[in-house]
């Protein structure tokens, strides 16, 4: 049985959960450990922490957040942001993370994916991909393509996101966390075409991210987008919906989920 995971995402800046629109305009959404415990109690299947500034000071703060979360939350959680080496990954895994997310460093040096997978196993390597729509190159019948951006969405790479996801899986990624920059924070729903393309071409599980504003968006991500997991932030942080309500909605739409 294939069951779809519901994953609240906690963007952490200087030890606080924040949320922005199209990667900017941040507001404070609370204490990460408190939110982690709340979402666990609501039936979250996993949690993702992203250290969105990841300066060296903040990295120490993040290790503390990870360690305190691991004391009281017994579901899987991923930590990303600023992971640039096997040692960075080791620090987070030893603090209690189950998986590490890598983004910019994986683009700059793809061998890092293999290095972490060799050291700790592919199951703990989540490659996060931030993708933005662009006009398709000649020959693409669907008229659209997506480009990979790094450095929190500030730096264009010229790389095709669908091909990059496939390559990541080949060299050791255990999972792909795919964020549509066009949709992030807009509440307009996932970029379903992007999600579908990556899910169909990439052999490892796919987490869809970016744009969830209502519960039907989660259903669309799982069904039309064929995502293995759906990630959302603001709908949960703002208290509009609980994780349990999200799962009830998915189940009512015929998507198999672990009941909350």
């Amino acid at each position: 049985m294939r069951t779809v995971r519901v994953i609240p995402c906690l963007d952490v800046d200087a030890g606080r959960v924040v949320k922005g629109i199209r990667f900017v305009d941040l507001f404070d959404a609370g204490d990460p450990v408190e939110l982690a415990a709340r979402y666990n109690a609501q039936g979250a299947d996993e949690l993702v922490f992203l250290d969105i500034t990841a300066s060296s000071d903040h990295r120490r703060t993040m290790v503390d957040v990870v360690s305190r979360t691991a004391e009281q939350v017994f579901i899987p959680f991923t930590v990303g942001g600023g992971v640039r080496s096997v040692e960075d990954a080791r620090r987070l895994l030893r603090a209690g993370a189950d998986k590490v997310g890598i983004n910019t460093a994986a683009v700059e040096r793809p061998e890092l994916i293999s290095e972490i997978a060799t050291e700790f196993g592919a199951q703990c390597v989540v490659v996060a991909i931030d993708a933005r729509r662009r006009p398709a190159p000649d020959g693409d019948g669907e008229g659209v393509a997506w480009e990979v951006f790094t450095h929190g969405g500030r730096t264009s790479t010229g790389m095709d996101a669908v091909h990059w996801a496939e390559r990541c899986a080949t060299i050791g990624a255990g999972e792909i966390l795919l964020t549509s920059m066009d949709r992030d924070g807009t509440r307009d729903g996932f970029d379903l075409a992007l999600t579908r393309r990556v899910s169909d071409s990439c052999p490892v599980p796919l987490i869809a991210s970016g744009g969830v504003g209502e519960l039907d968006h989660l259903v669309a991500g799982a069904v039309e987008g064929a995502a293995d997991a759906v990630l959302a932030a603001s709908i949960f942080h703002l208290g509009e919906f609980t994780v349990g309500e999200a799962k009830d909605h998915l189940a009512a739409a015929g998507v198999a989920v672990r009941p909350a």
Partner: protein
Amino acid sequence: MIAVLDYGIGNLRSAEKALQHVGSDARLVSDPARVADAEGVVLPGVGSFGPCARALRDSGLASAALDAIARGTPFLGICIGFQLLYEGSEEDPDQPGLGVLPGMVRALPRGVKHPQMQWNVLDRVAGHESGLLAGTPDPAWVYFVHSFAPEMTSDTTSTCDYGGPITASAERGPLWGTQFHPEKSGSVGLGILGNFAREVAGTRPGVSARPVTGRPAPPGTGS
């Protein structure tokens, strides 16, 4: 004391912390000599079979684990630590397992994504008493991350459906194993770890002890 075998593989803290959360005196143990003092032993493992098998042997903890199993010490293998109890794995055919449970570890069926990285429901094997799963709710949802699983044998106590039935847990006397991660399976998983903690607490040191002579025969009844 429950010894969580620390042979340098991945995140062992979560198993230790979850066992402590259910009231056990769980400690990471890397010194083989200290395993003999343990009333219970947990063998975690993540990554792939070959590196785990090698690391376990190189650390000296493989023989300590075999000795503990031979003494009848309650023993719980988790994920790759569960797979290591079998004879070997298709994943790394050159690396033998501990061989205390008969059977081989096989790749998951074709036609489904590898790894299985999700929550799934346990299907209990009818007619098989299970101390491990005692008191778990029905349905019991637990978290899996794996591309391989032990083949189904007479030791199998539960399966999950992932492109077909897959071994989820096995038990042979005090030797237990789970392909899923009880330490990451929320309240259901904590309940399962609580069952193991009670199994350990019910074992009075010395009662089941017997001299160790080399490689042990599989505990419990033969198959």
